């Protein structure tokens, strides 16, 4: 947008502009950000997310906990001195496990969403730009993958290949790119016939220029919104895998795994083995949903005000 304003600026430097002053116009991105930060829920979500990043990554530097050796003396200890949130049935510290599990959740969620975003953007952009039978074929492939029940597929593949953080992220990402692919294709299809893209084309813009300068930046808003939800879904899927016993392997630990361990003793009243990790999981998912909703409104408003 700024580029257009610049080219329409006064012909002689310093001469008064016709039809009022030429003022600087905030870019669409900045308007969107302003909209986002005026949304209380979205900011709350961001605050929760920042809290979890600090808690999970800086926490372990301050709070050293045993998460590796079984210690029979402190098995199932309730919250108290030495263990602010108590211990699990193997003597592992709950607070320390929360930090370690949070790291895994954040990393896998982010990595899976990046894989999904990159794959989906590429696929959708190519399908939308080429069009014709290639587009039909590519979108039928998306339909096929979309029909596969996500959890079942991730369980089957993850059961054999999901032992490491990178593998699990790749598996979750490879089955999450369908949303971004559909969105980007839709955006590209509407954008390529818009006036500003036609203008860039008649001005002699190369195909490459059109894609990188006009199509992708304008499609990016919807992709980023979707990516936020993909992060939440990946963290949820990871927790489900852990809960069912097919998550990351010892010495790594994830929140679903901890919930599953804790439920064995919930009947005995060992609430600290389930509720703290449950609260963390729900809060983190909520934060991504809040941020996603906020971003969607910001992107929407930007489009509406244009």
């Amino acid at each position, binding site marked *: 947008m700024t580029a257009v304003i610049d080219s329409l600026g006064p012909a002689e430097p310093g001469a008064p502009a016709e039809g009022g002053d030429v003022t600087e116009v905030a870019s669409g991105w900045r308007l969107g950000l302003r909209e986002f930060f005026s949304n209380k829920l979205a900011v709350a979500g961001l605050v929760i997310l920042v809290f979890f990043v600090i808690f999970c990554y800086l926490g372990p530097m301050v709070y050293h906990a045993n998460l590796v050796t079984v210690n029979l003396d402190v098995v199932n200890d309730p919250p108290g001195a030495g263990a602010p949130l108590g211990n699990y049935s193997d003597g592992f510290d709950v607070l320390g496990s929360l930090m370690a599990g949070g790291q895994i959740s954040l990393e896998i969620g982010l990595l899976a969403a990046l894989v999904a975003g990159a794959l989906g953007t590429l696929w959708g952009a190519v399908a939308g730009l080429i069009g014709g039978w290639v587009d039909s074929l590519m979108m039928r492939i998306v339909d096929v993958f979309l029909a596969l*029940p996500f959890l079942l597929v991730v*369980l089957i593949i993850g059961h054999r290949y999901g032992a490491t953080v990178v593998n699990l992220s790749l598996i979750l990402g490879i089955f999450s790119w369908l949303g971004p692919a559909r969105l980007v294709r839709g955006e590209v299809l509407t954008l390529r016939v818009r006036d500003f893209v036609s203008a860039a084309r008649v001005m002699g813009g190369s195909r490459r220029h059109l894609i990188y300068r006009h199509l992708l930046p304008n499609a990016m808003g919807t992709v980023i919104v979707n990516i936020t939800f993909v992060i939440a879904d990946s963290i949820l899927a990871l927790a489900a895998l852990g809960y069912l016993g097919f998550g990351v392997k010892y010495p790594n630990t994830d929140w679903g795994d901890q919930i599953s361990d804790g439920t064995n003793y919930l009947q005995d009243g060992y609430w600290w083995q389930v509720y703290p990790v449950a609260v963390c999981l729900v809060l983190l998912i909520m934060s991504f949903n809040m941020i996603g909703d906020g971003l969607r409104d910001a992107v929407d408003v930007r489009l509406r005000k244009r």
Partner: protein
Amino acid sequence: MAGYLARRFLTAIVVCLGVTLVSFVMLHIAAPNPGQAALGARASQAAIAAYDKQNGYDRPIPVQFVTYLNHFIHGQLGWSYKFNQSVNALFAEKTPLSAFLTGISLLLAVVIAIPLGIYQAVKRNGMLDAAATTVAFVLYSTPVYLVALILQHIFADQLGWVSANVSQDQSLAGALSDFKDLLLPILSLTAVAVAGFSRYQRSSSLDVLAQDYIRVARAKGLSERLVYTRHLLRNAILPTITLLGLYVPFFIAGNILIEYTFNIDGLGLLFINALTDEDYNILISYTLIGAILTVIGNLIADLALAAADPRIRIA
């Protein structure tokens, strides 16, 4: 309309074929050695080779796929080595209970969420709307098994109103004789589904309420009740119909997680056990049936949408 239907059916069939191919290849990647899985880690190479030959696992993968497809189309889902029983028989045994749990949760969720969402939109920003929106937002971010665990802790462990152990009877009639104990699984699935549906229903109702035809309906003197039932409901329900089709994978996942949590002997638990045993034919049959149900769900949603929305019906 006929053209739309034909195109829609054709796409569904093509997608189903694609899904069969993808699941088949995927399972070959995930479980490349069915003979080893069936006979155990200490089986001799000769025994494994004999097993693979007997079951056709030694033939080229395209040949295996065509054979599999032929059997699948004729309704033969193969043999489960772990149960030494046909997958058809296993599924026939366990489907009624799972289908009942999922079906009644879906039905309850629709019956609760649609009026709730519309009510929230009509009385927006009121006390009840704020409360329902908040609860729905939290529940929407909560995994279904967590809801189940918390309900179990409160109503079974603490209050003792129901038993945490659901009837182990596989038959639907047997499980229903302890209907009280099935309440928690149904409640958990319903609660999470209502959270998803009602959020959607509320926002689509808000969109419809801002339309000119609602103002026209009020201006010509229709009672509020008629405005809501004739004009609001019929239009605001359309996006929810599409959403229902998209929720099939949610219910398949929910079925697994809920049956695992409550130890209900249905299809979901069968799948989890088959995964541990690498029981090949159960895994692929379940995935395929899940995928085909998803395609059918979307198809039904599209057809229902066409039936409900004259704009699609005529175009």
